């Protein structure tokens, strides 16, 4: 059975602003699920509805098979790490962690023991008597984690918990969170707009856009098997290059054709593309799937605009038919003497329907 299930979940603000539009989602016990999307896509609202901080307009939320729509947050067995950490400034670290336990009327010894345990796990033992204002951002973050762990929740909710940390700390906290999840095994929902965070943490990623779910899948599925143009565009850095082409048929062989090139399409796609012959579609090439080639094998030339060195590799920004194309290469270091580059496809590409923006194959 699923640990958490959202059925037809809808949120409407002020009678006419549709924030969440009929979402269905099932989460397995112990899973680390990341809600990913641009700001305003509804990911935080979804999480807040699961937490009980936001009323549900329509639809149902089940936790372990039990309808929780009308339960208070405290009756749902959830724990949360907030974006601002929300460490209460007037309580010491100890009291912050112990507060929830005191409310549960736990014995003093038990509280002490629990606080010590989670403080040790989060590496904040020596700060227990300090006030939040005396802690750095990273330390406050750990307190928030410890406080969330202390109540031994069935479900962890994390609302962009790393977004206020500096880049380096973010990466190390990421590892810590993942480790913590492995140890505790609690089901976790993590909201973020940072795709690399999502990729590295998630068992499964839910990509949201304007209140709906675009795709659910493992990080690899999301990247290598993007179902929509939005996902292909949003995931990956640099993002997918989209090229408008027309499907044409010559001697029972399909080609993608535009003013710059004519690319033969693998026969295995013939069935799926059957209805698209002589129609416009969109080709999506991941940057690493467009590679430098010799002049003989090339598919097309790009006009190089600039080269962004990244150390291990470079991102080459070029133009094809006045549209920007980005490719990744470890051969080109800078743009000395380079005006144009011959490019070919390595045979991996997405084909999207131009109207629905859904993947054809």
């Amino acid at each position, binding site marked *: 059975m699923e640990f958490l299930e959202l059925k037809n979940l809808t949120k409407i603000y002020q009678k006419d602003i549709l924030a969440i539009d009929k979402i269905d989602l099932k989460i397995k016990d112990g899973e680390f699920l990341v809600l990913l999307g641009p700001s305003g896509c509804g990911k935080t609202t979804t999480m807040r509805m699961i937490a009980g*901080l936001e009323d549900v307009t329509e639809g149902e939320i089940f936790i372990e098979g039990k309808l929780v729509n009308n339960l208070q947050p405290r009756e749902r067995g959830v*724990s*949360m790490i907030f974006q601002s950490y929300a460490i*209460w*400034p*007037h*309580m010491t670290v100890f009291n912050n962690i112990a*507060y929830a336990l005191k409310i549960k009327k736990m014995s003093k010894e038990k509280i002490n023991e629990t606080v010590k345990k989670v403080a040790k796990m989060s590496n904040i033992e020596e700060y227990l008597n300090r006030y939040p204002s005396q802690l750095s951002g990273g330390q406050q973050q750990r307190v928030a984690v410890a406080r969330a762990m202390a109540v031994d929740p069935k479900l962890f909710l994390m609302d962009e918990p790393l977004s206020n940390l500096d880049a380096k700390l973010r990466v190390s906290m990421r590892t810590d969170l993942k480790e913590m999840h492995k140890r505790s095994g609690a089901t976790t929902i993590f909201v973020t707009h940072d795709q690399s965070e999502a990729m590295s943490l998630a068992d499964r990623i839910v990509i949201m856009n304007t209140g709906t779910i675009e795709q659910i899948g493992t990080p690899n599925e999301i990247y290598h098997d993007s179902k929509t143009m939005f996902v292909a565009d949003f995931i990956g850095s640099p993002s997918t290059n989209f090229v408008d082409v027309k499907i044409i048929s010559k001697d029972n062989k399909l080609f993608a054709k535009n003013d710059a090139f004519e690319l033969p399409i693998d026969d295995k796609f013939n069935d799926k593309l059957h209805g698209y012959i002589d129609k416009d579609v969109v080709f999506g090439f991941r940057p690493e799937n467009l590679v430098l080639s010799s002049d003989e094998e090339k598919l097309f030339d790009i006009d190089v605009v600039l080269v962004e060195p990244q150390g291990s590799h470079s991102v080459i920004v070029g133009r094809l038919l006045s549209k920007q194309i980005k490719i990744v290469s470890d051969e080109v270091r800078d743009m000395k003497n380079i005006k144009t580059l011959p490019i070919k496809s390595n045979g991996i590409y997405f084909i999207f329907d131009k109207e629905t923006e859904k993947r054809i194959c």
Partner: protein
Amino acid sequence: MKNKYKKWFPYFLLTPALLYYVLFWIRPVLRAFFESMTDYDGSFSLMFFSKVINESMFTAALRNSLLFALISVMLQFTVAFMMALLLNKKFKGSNLLLFVALIPMAVPPAAVAILWKTGFSTFGWINNLLITLNLIKEPILWMTAKGYNALLFLILIDTWTVLPSVMIILLAGLQNLNKEYEEAGLIFGASRFQIIKDIIMPILKPTIITAVILRMIAAMQVWMISVMMFGYGRVPFLVERIAYYTDMVPMLKESYKMSLTYSVVVTTIVMISVMIYLRVNKKKEKEVRI
């Protein structure tokens, strides 16, 4: 040179205000202290202090002022805090409700007196309302209230008038509070009441202290509604005595000195009360920290 200028710039901006206070506050205050501690001929004497303390109305005035401050501040803080909590929520019509809640603030003391006099007079609208609603048969003679009843009366009228100004400070504090503090409380199992008691109030403490002290100072100096409702002498207050000497009997030889002596007494009492309040709060804070 540049550095020196920079160092003095903040003081330069403060100077006009400070000068103003020296001229128009410190000078009259010192004058008041001087007058209260001298005889008519200017020689040192505590005669007027003993005159004030032995005046027949003094004990009643002191008792009324302190009681008034104590009860009204507690009552006003509680209600204003509830109002602020309510108005901090966004709901349909909340903006309009806020305006309505602020209306009493716009009513000057002179108008407040008329407003309630039209209500509490024998044929006023309060009796009229009560009779129409069949709650009473005969008009109640409100204005004949005496002693503690009259004091309670004034406390209620004062509360009506000043609630918005207390509420406004608390509301600003609440609006600036990070909403996630409250939500964290909800998540970690606190009830609504526990959230207010354990989270909102302690975090809001500086704002609360500000609001309470400002109110305390004003409450201990209450006098006008008493005079407007009941006239001089019926429900005496400390500052009411000052007004009595300047408004009612300004021609008496001792009036000038009596009123200034009273003002020194009031200031001293207010100061002590504020200090006690601050001390009690500091102490509590220490206990919490341990």
